[in-house]
């Protein structure tokens, strides 16, 4: 076995141990999870080293025969995988450490760490998979764990519901993914990513296959129109939100598109679809985030928005830009969620309208939160700035003015709502009775570490730059994007700190829009009316149909026979005259029949 094989195996081992004997391990279950995660990280580093020495892929052997051909499972190692491995294991480690503090008095402490280990294992496996089938196995594993973790506090009905919603919604995308995969297989005869360079087949079919595969990414990365599960997923414990949003679940979708990039790149229509869906999601989610009042939901919508931006980046042809943003986003979004978790842990509420002035009470959290927010807002020199800038640049250079405008508008909105969040939560006066206190070190240390990366990761540059040859940075673009970010910050400052009258009244004047945004464009409601209710009615209807018509027919046949029996037995009157009459008639009829009269 190669060292890369151990990467997902360690967390999986932790899962197995924790699920069966975790209860007895108590706090040890957490150490186990953290330890295996660190081991995975170390292995990832080793794989990186191996990669630099020229190792590329490792086979695991044949899984099964399809159409008489063996389907080999194996591991792919390239910059994309290594980046993902490092991010996942690194951020995962800190989220796990943080969780020790966050979950310390939860009755299902060990269970939590079991699930999260499985989550890590699935995600690590996913990025290592060298073909669609193996990827799908881990892909579904990720979805499953998200279900378990979102519904972790299942005593709350909303949590249980959110878990189901997440799994079912992503499954819709996965079905498209599966079909696309099959389409690709039957057109080109391969499930393997490494064969993408040599794909040959009818253009429209491959375009369709690519779009269907993208459907899987839409589901996992919570892009419009399958984004509805993500905000609800906030019902899970906050570190889980951090994990889902930063490094694992939602990143999987972007990773998939990046992984299949050669396929998309060869088919402009597919690429266009990715960009447009990304753009819609980015803008839509950003606008919703502007008015939302739940600290976690604002971050959730910002995730959808940022993922949309990544998709947009990929869609306009910027493989390196998209993945770069995926990386920087992982750091600052994990940081933001963990900070939010720390705040919620401290104050016990999530509504930002009731917070305020927390800066003085929670210094570490607040500073790191601000760093994260600035990174997300795209203020230089924080990480988000660099990657976002690259996306904007790619969009512009590849002649997508509309998408460029969308991306620009999104960054404006992003900086605005992040500033709003910061101002409402950390500054100003407390708007309700809050007994806030700083979180324990086990929680704050990960914050500090992550904040360092959120601040500085941008300087690393896109890990795929060499491979793909991205555009050189342009001063004009940097200036423009900085201006946009600062404008957003400034606006928020004016409205929420200075409480200026003009923008306030401006806001008041568009109440209709605000309602629309507060209700998330009514998309959940529309789905409820257009999809969920009719389907439930259909199910009920099918059941009635089954009972009344299908089974009714069966019973009907039986009843008709019984009825005939009831009628025919009347012929047996018991009167000999009748019997004799029947007999004579019988004879006459027989004769008539035989003589054909």
């Amino acid at each position: 076995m190669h060292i890369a094989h151990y990467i997902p195996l360690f967390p999986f081992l932790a899962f197995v141990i924790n699920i069966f004997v975790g209860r007895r391990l108590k706090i040890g279950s957490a150490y186990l999870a953290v330890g295996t995660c660190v081991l995975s990280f170390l292995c990832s580093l080793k794989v990186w080293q191996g990669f630099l020495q020229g190792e590329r892929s490792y086979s695991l052997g044949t899984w099964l025969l399809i159409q008489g051909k063996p389907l080999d499972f194996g591991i792919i190692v390239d910059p994309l995988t290594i980046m993902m491995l490092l991010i996942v294991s690194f951020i995962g480690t800190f989220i796990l450490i943080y969780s020790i503090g966050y979950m310390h008095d939860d009755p299902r402490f060990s269970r939590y760490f079991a699930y999260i280990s499985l989550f890590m294992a699935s995600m690590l496996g996913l990025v290592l998979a060298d073909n669609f089938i193996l990827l799908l196995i881990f892909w579904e594993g990720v979805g499953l764990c998200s279900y378990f973790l979102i519904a972790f506090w299942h005593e709350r009905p909303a949590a249980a519901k959110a878990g189901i919603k997440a799994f079912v919604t992503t499954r819709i995308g996965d079905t498209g993914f599966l079909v696309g995969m099959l389409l690709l297989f039957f057109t080109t005869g391969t499930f393997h990513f490494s064969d993408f360079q040599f794909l040959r087949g009818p253009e429209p079919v491959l375009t369709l296959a690519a779009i269907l595969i993208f459907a899987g990414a839409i589901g996992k990365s919570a892009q419009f129109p399958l984004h509805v599960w993500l905000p609800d997923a906030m019902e899970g414990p906050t570190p889980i939100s951090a994990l889902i949003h930063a490094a694992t679940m939602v990143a999987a979708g972007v990773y998939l598109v990046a992984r299949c990039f050669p396929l998309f790149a060869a088919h402009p229509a597919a690429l266009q679809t990715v960009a447009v869906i990304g753009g819609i999601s980015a803008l839509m989610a950003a606008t919703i985030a502007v008015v939302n009042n739940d600290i976690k939901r604002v971050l959730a919508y910002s995730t959808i928005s940022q993922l949309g931006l990544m998709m947009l980046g990929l869609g306009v042809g910027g493989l390196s830009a998209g993945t770069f943003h995926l990386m920087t986003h992982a750091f600052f979004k994990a940081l933001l969620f963990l900070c939010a978790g720390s705040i919620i842990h401290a104050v016990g509420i999530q509504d930002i309208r009731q917070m305020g002035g927390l800066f003085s009470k929670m210094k570490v959290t607040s500073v790191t939160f601000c760093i994260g927010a600035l990174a997300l807002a795209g203020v230089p020199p924080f990480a988000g700035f660099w990657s976002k800038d690259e996306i904007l640049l790619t969009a512009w250079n590849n002649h997508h003015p509309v998408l460029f405008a969308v991306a620009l508008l999104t960054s404006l909105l992003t900086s605005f709502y992040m500033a709003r969040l910061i101002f409402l939560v950390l500054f100003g006066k407390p708007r309700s009775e809050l007994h806030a206190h700083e979180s324990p070190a086990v929680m704050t240390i990960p914050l500090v570490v992550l904040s360092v990366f959120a601040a500085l990761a941008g300087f690393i540059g896109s890990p795929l730059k060499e491979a793909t040859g991205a555009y050189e940075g342009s001063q004009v673009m940097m200036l423009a994007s900085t201006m946009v970010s600062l404008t957003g910050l400034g606006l928020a400052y004016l409205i929420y700190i200075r409480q200026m009258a003009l923008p306030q009244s401006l806001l008041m004047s568009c109440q209709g829009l605000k309602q629309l945004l507060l209700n998330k464009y009514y998309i959940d409601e529309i789905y409820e009316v257009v999809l969920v209710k009719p389907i439930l009615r259909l199910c009920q209807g099918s059941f009635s149909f089954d009972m009344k018509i299908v089974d009714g027919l069966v019973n009907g046949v039986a009843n008709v026979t019984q009825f005939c029996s009831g009628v025919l037995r009347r012929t047996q009157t018991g009167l000999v005259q009748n019997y004799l009459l029947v007999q004579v008639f019988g004879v006459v009829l027989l004769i008539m029949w035989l003589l054909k009269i």
Partner: protein
Amino acid sequence: MTIQFLFPELLLVFFAVAVLFGSVSNFFKKFTPVVAALGLLGALLLLPAASQSSTAVFFHLLEADTISAFFRTLILIGSALIVFLSMGEPQIQEQDRGEFYFFILTLAISMMIAVSSRNLLMIYIALETVSIISYILVGYLKQDAFSSEAGLKYFLFGALSTGIMLYGISLLYGLFGTLDLPTMAAAVKQEHIYFPIFILSMVFVLAGLAFKCSLVPFHMAAPDAYQGAPTPISAFLSIGPKAMGFALLLRVFLGTPTPLIAKWSALAQWLAIITMTLGNIIALKQTNVKRLLAYSSIAHAGFMLMALAAVNASGIKALLFYLFIYVFMNVGAFGCVVLTQRQEVAQYAGLSRQYPFAAFVMSISLLSLAGLPPLAGFMAKFVVIAAAIQAKLYLLAIIAVLNSVIALFYYLRIIKAMYLSKTEIGGQLNSTVPHSRALILALTLTLLVNILLGLWPQGLMPWLSLSP
């Protein structure tokens, strides 16, 4: 010497007379059933020797072919089983039982004569004897109003049937100047006869035989008779005269030449369809087990007719096999009615826990009647349907198998009551009857036949085959 052909019958006559005389004395009366059984057994032993003979015997009145040999055996076995059944029936035990066994033996003799007859007059005489004894036996329970009524109905109905038949016979005599069946067959082949009259007379003959086989629409008296008669007699009526009827149908109709055969086949096909369907459907709602079995036996007559409709060698073999199995299935079912003395389906509730043996035999018999593998009834149905398919009677075959599904439903009703029902109806098994051990023996025998012949039919029926 052709007289040796009649040795079994003569032996039976001897025993019958012995039984009759024995019944005079109270001391000997106890032994009459045993004597009757011994007589039947003896006759059975004599049969193989008696069958080694030329074809036409006894002034060309009787035929000594495989068909007669088979049916004589069958009748002897059936009668013996009925004697055993009667030994367990308290109603008969209470009455003057000597003459009862005398009637059974004479019935057996006349049926044996009938199945070997090749002359219409002989057939008629034998048939009439059978009828008269049947009327007596049906109405045997003098105190029982139902029994007497059933006897009377059976008599009136039977009288009309045989009357019609006699008319047919006389017409045939007018046409051919002979009553010898082979001669008539040859005549049909050679000469120009007036066809409509021939058909007319044949239908009249058919009516008489159809009554014995209880084919629709000549079945009307059967349910009433079966229900009213003492149970062993119901059993006897369902096997003896029916077997005889089919033997004669074989003789009368298959002797005729090809153009007519097709016609008979079509006729038999439709009669079979009507008979099995009507019998089964009416049986669905019956609550009296004897009546239910009566309708079931009507339905089975339809199946047997199906084998006849196939008019091929497999069909004839199938019919014989079916009849043989049918005797055991039906005796098994009726025997359980005798054993439990329960006539209503509802009374069978919980029988499996009270009398597992009775319930077991009943279930096996009923499932065999329903034609479920691996019981003998399945093999019987299998060969019959095979014959029909071989003759390309697909419609008939389809209707037949669907009928077997309907039939299963009412057989299941009894099984359901015995096994599935949680309630229990009180009641004594009539183990008090002195000779009930014979009844148990008969039931065990039917059980074995029903199971073993299903597993290995050709062990006992080496001639059974699907001929190409």
